[in-house]
């Protein structure tokens, strides 16, 4: 018996060592993107779409600015350029619906400690991607409200070489995978200059709604409000309330648009990893269409859409 519990103890220690190791890799990944310059080509694949892209990444060392340029290589060129993490320019496909990136909700870096509350991070083996040897991590959800990831990190630099999004049955929802990565050749200046497809970014005019004008009675554990705006719809001119929630890895957006007396059905749809669920709700200000869009399971989105409420204050108005 004693032997058995000793075995258990050693076993659990080995497990926690292994988990710590996996967390270490995740921390190294975060540092790698800040410190390591690289250039490469990757593919992105989801249900119904396959595309190829190039990336040039200049780490901001010795008080130089960090620069990153991404360019879609097939079809219409889609391009994005970031300087010191800020969007400098972008094609309309990637930047025409942007609302302020700064403000009360600055981007939060991935926090491996916090992530471990909602995901189990494990090192599961080794692989080879883009001709480089890699370490395989799985980031699996501890509940059924989010998806899991499989990450293949470059053994030498910790850069992510392959990232798979998996549903609860282990089915692949999307894949981002490098086919070529160069971490040693210095980047030439012309590769870090935006091309003609990269247009200056105009952010949409927004205002901040009253705190708590809308809320969700239920959220999957770990998800918090990351952003909240109201803005006129480019389609109808109606004021749309926009909320974004995240758990540090997965994100979903909530759109609330007044319907007035329009007859509109509830709807749902799935685009690769992204689910869309729309549902009509009644408020004191008339009927609204609530739409939840995010990289979360359908059940999660359905439950959120049913939990959105207008605040009492608004209802009294």
């Amino acid at each position, binding site marked *: 018996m004693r032997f058995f519990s000793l075995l258990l103890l050693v076993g659990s220690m080995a497990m926690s060592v292994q988990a710590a190791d996996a967390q270490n890799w995740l921390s190294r990944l975060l540092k790698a993107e800040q410190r390591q310059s690289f250039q490469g080509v990757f593919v992105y694949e989801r249900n119904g*779409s396959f595309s190829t892209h190039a990336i040039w990444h200049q780490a901001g060392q010795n008080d130089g600015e960090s620069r990153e340029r991404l360019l879609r290589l097939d079809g219409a060129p889609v391009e994005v350029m970031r300087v010191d993490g800020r969007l400098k320019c972008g094609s309309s496909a990637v930047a025409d619906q942007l609302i302020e990136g700064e403000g009360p909700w600055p981007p939060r870096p991935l926090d491996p400690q916090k992530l471990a509350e909602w995901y189990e991070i494990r090192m599961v083996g080794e692989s080879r991607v883009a001709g480089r040897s890699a370490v395989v991590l799985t980031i699996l959800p501890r509940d059924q409200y989010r998806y899991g990831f499989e990450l293949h990190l470059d053994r030498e630099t910790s850069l992510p070489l392959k990232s798979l999004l998996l549903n609860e049955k282990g089915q692949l929802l999307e894949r981002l995978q490098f086919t070529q990565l160069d971490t040693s050749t210095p980047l030439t200046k012309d590769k870090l200059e935006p091309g003609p497809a990269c247009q200056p970014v105009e952010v949409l005019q927004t205002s901040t709604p009253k705190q708590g004008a809308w809320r969700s009675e239920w959220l999957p554990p770990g998800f918090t409000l990351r952003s909240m705006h109201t803005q006129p719809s480019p389609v109808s001119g109606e004021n749309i309330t926009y909320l974004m929630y995240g758990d540090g890895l997965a994100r979903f957006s909530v759109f609330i648009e007044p319907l007035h007396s329009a007859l509109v059905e509830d709807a749902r749809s799935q685009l690769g990893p992204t689910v869309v669920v729309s549902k009509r709700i009644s408020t004191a200000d008339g009927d609204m269409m609530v739409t939840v869009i995010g990289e979360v399971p359908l059940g999660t989105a359905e439950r959120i859409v049913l939990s959105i409420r207008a605040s009492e204050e608004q209802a009294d108005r």
Partner: protein
Amino acid sequence: MSREALYESLSAVMDDEADEMELHRVLAATKDDAELRAAWSRYQLARAVMHRDLLEPRLDIAAGVSAALAAEAMPKARIFSWGFVGRITVAASVTVAVLAGVRLYNQSEMSDAELAQRAPQPSLSAPQVQGTPILAGYTEGVEQSQEPSSKDMGKDSEWHEKRLPTYLRQHVQQSSVNGAESALPYARAASLENR
């Protein structure tokens, strides 16, 4: 019909294997058979427990399905095409109502990937107005409104068709601003630009 046969049908409904006749039979029987209704609720509960999931035991599935059937009684089933996102399911048909009601509490029934991979099924897009049947017995209660005239029916799909692409773009673009990782949200946004 014998009770055994009725319970068998009920179990088929639960497993989503019932044909339309069986479904109607079970629904008709539950109307004035409290025992059968209770059995239905128990089955739901048992199933939820097996999946270790929370379930609101008072959820009246039968009422929800009846409402869905009423809504589906409308003659025209429209084929809905939304080129941008590929496929949209209107939560109105009986199958979807039953599935959705269950999936609310445990989502192992149908994977999203399967849902995404399935070919478009026109039979699933029976039009339906406010008051989602799956909500019967849920906190908000049922809102049954009269059916709209066929003139208005074209508009509502248009409503989503116009807005969802914008919503989707905003979601992926905002993700790339709010997120720490850059390549993945960028790739998601760039992949929307297919045609």
